[in-house]
């Protein structure tokens, strides 16, 4: 038992710190030093909060259609009114629709006759987090006014609210896909290396087989096979499974390499001698020691899946309206003329770029920090 439980032995000695804690401290110290990693972490946290509390941040229902407001442009937040007077509470002006008498083009002009101050924590449309009805929203304007910070889409739906909702879908599909992929990858890698022999042979052939397909065409072909009659939830799950089931091979290879060297080390051998079961060795000794690797790759898989989802959805092969994701929102920008006249419909793209950038920064910082003993 003493041999097997290395950690408790170390806990008793005063000279050495507990291995796990010291490692995490070293990682954190190194992670803190990298400015880009911190920026990445902040970006990711902001996006996650916006997505989780999407309805709270949206003053309008993202699904409510208002045909009269089709493609109405973003409203600007003012601190100074048209007479140049400063107001501490920011406000917006309503937009007035006018028609150009010659071209019949729709022109939106700010109606400066009435100000609509922005209030925080106001009551608005009802949503139900966990089934509890709730009307609280972060910001809003009094009745008669409107605040559409990112304008409206083709059907007159509030783009800000739709981006928040789309972020929820885009982030969760990538996160769940990456977790599934990390789970499969680490299990296959560990089992392959730990058991060796014929198991290893078969699993490695499967890895090679999956890696012989070109990614993008394969994903396109598989996602178009998802029946159009399926409900949104099923399509979501199907795409998520597709991501998870097809992207685990690089991780499996890496974990396999790591476990191959770990399984000959003393603490694993001693555990085996002490009669620990295979499952115990795998989950208690091998996987925890690969965890830093797995977390790094998980962090770097997420942005990759966000890009994949948005690309497939943009091409009309992934998620479909009425489902909302950043890629689906960008379908409206497919027509260059539409995008030229209503540039704000491309804003979801900026959210994709910022989120992916955040995850890449974070993952890169984690990768450097996960190996705190190297000089770099």
């Amino acid at each position, binding site marked *: 038992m003493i041999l097997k439980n290395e950690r408790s032995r170390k806990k008793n000695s005063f000279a050495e710190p507990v291995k796990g804690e010291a490692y995490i401290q070293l990682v954190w110290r190194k992670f803190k030093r990298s400015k*880009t990693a911190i920026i990445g972490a902040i970006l990711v946290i902001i996006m996650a909060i916006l997505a989780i509390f999407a309805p709270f941040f949206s003053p309008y229902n993202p699904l409510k259609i208002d045909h009269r407001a089709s493609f109405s442009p973003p409203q600007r937040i003012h601190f100074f009114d048209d007479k140049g007077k400063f107001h501490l509470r920011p406000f917006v002006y309503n937009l007035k629709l006018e028609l150009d008498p010659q071209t019949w083009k729709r022109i939106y002009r700010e109606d400066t006759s009435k100000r609509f101050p922005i209030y925080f924590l106001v009551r608005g449309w009802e949503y139900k987090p966990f089934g509890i009805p709730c009307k609280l929203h972060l910001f809003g304007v009094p009745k008669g006014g409107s605040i559409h910070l990112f304008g409206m889409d083709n059907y007159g739906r509030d783009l800000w609210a739709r981006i928040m909702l789309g972020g929820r879908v885009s982030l969760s599909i990538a996160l769940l896909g990456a977790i599934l992929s990390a789970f499969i990858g680490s299990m296959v890698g560990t089992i392959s290396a730990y058991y060796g022999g014929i198991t290893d042979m078969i699993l490695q052939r499967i890895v*090679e*087989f999956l*890696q*012989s*397909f*070109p*990614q*993008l*065409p*394969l994903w*396109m*072909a*598989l996602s*178009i*096979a998802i*029946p159009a009659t399926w409900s949104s939830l099923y399509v979501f799950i199907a795409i998520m499974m597709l991501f998870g089931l097809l992207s685990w091979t690089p991780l499996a290879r890496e974990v396999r390499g790591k476990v191959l060297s770990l399984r000959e080390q003393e603490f694993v051998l001693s555990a085996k001698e002490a009669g620990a079961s295979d499952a115990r060795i795998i989950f208690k000794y091998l996987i925890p020691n690969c965890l830093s690797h797995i977390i790094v790759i998980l962090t770097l898989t997420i*942005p990759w899946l966000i*890009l994949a989802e*948005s*690309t497939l959805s*943009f*091409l*009309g*092969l992934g998620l479909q309206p009425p489902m909302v994701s950043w890629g689906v929102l*960008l379908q409206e*920008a*497919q027509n*260059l003329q539409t*995008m*030229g006249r209503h*540039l704000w419909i*491309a804003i979801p*793209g900026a959210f*994709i*770029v*910022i989120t*992916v*950038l955040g995850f*890449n*920064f974070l993952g*890169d910082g984690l990768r450097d920090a996960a190996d705190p003993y190297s*000089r*770099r």
Partner: protein
Amino acid sequence: MISYIIRRILYVIPLLLAVSIVCFVIIQLPPGDFLTAIESQLKSQAGLSEEESRKMVDEMRKTYGLDKSMPVQYLIWIKNIVTKGDFGYSFGYRKPAQEVIWERLKWTMIIALSAHLISTLVGLLIGIYSATHQYSLGDHLSTFLAFIGLSFPEFFTALVIMYLLVFRFRVPHVGGLSSPEYVLATWNWAKFVDFLQHFWIPVVISGVAGVARNMRVMRANLLDVFRSQYVITARAKGLKERIVLYKHAVVNALHPIIAYQGVALPYIVQGTMVTAIVLNLPTTGPAFYDALVFQDTLLAGSFLLMVTVVLVIGNLLSDLILAWIDPRIRYD
């Protein structure tokens, strides 16, 4: 060594067989086929009754062998590919699938290879600059830009560039490879200039991510090499920095990038795919996309199979080359 090569090649044959089966099955997964669309067309446009149109379509199915079971269809398909090089009939283009692909392969390769070449060169140069000027302003800037380049979805880069060109710089025509007035013209100077004006756009768009990737790889490798002992030795014996850099460091830092070239081809081809779809280029990407959407089964399947086979063979070649140049690789 010889036995290793033979074993590797023999191993590829069952792999190719399995891959071709999976390609065929995946493409057949969506319900219905191209003829279902023709059937509804016959009903709605040609004014045939339900019975008549079904009879007609069934006859067509018989002609093209679509009434047979899936395994039989697969066997016929693969037999024709292996014996006659015939990939089957594309309903969408009304000609053999391989003809459609070959026609479009020329432009695919020209665009893809240009993008690859430029992105490799530019990426290497920026990478070398970054590594030799570590932690300078230029290094920080190019590292940051590389991150941004990797964070743009390809289709979004394409949209942004197209928007800028059309609505900011007032370029008269964007998309495709030539303006409408030159499509049928014979090659002359004006057409060539017009072609260049269209050509650089997909090359730049699909090159952006490549530049970023190559730059990061080159920078990291070069920094690693700078710490190795032979570089320290080279500096210690008083060689000029230029010679240390180009004769010792860069050459060795290039290895992973050279090793990548063996499998680069399929990645290059699929890398330009999304751009090609957004810009509507006469390449294989949009043809594959249309074939998927309109269930032009054999065309889509043939394309998927071709890219996969190229990938498998590329992997095989790069394994063999690595085994040949690197004596440390074991053959057992």
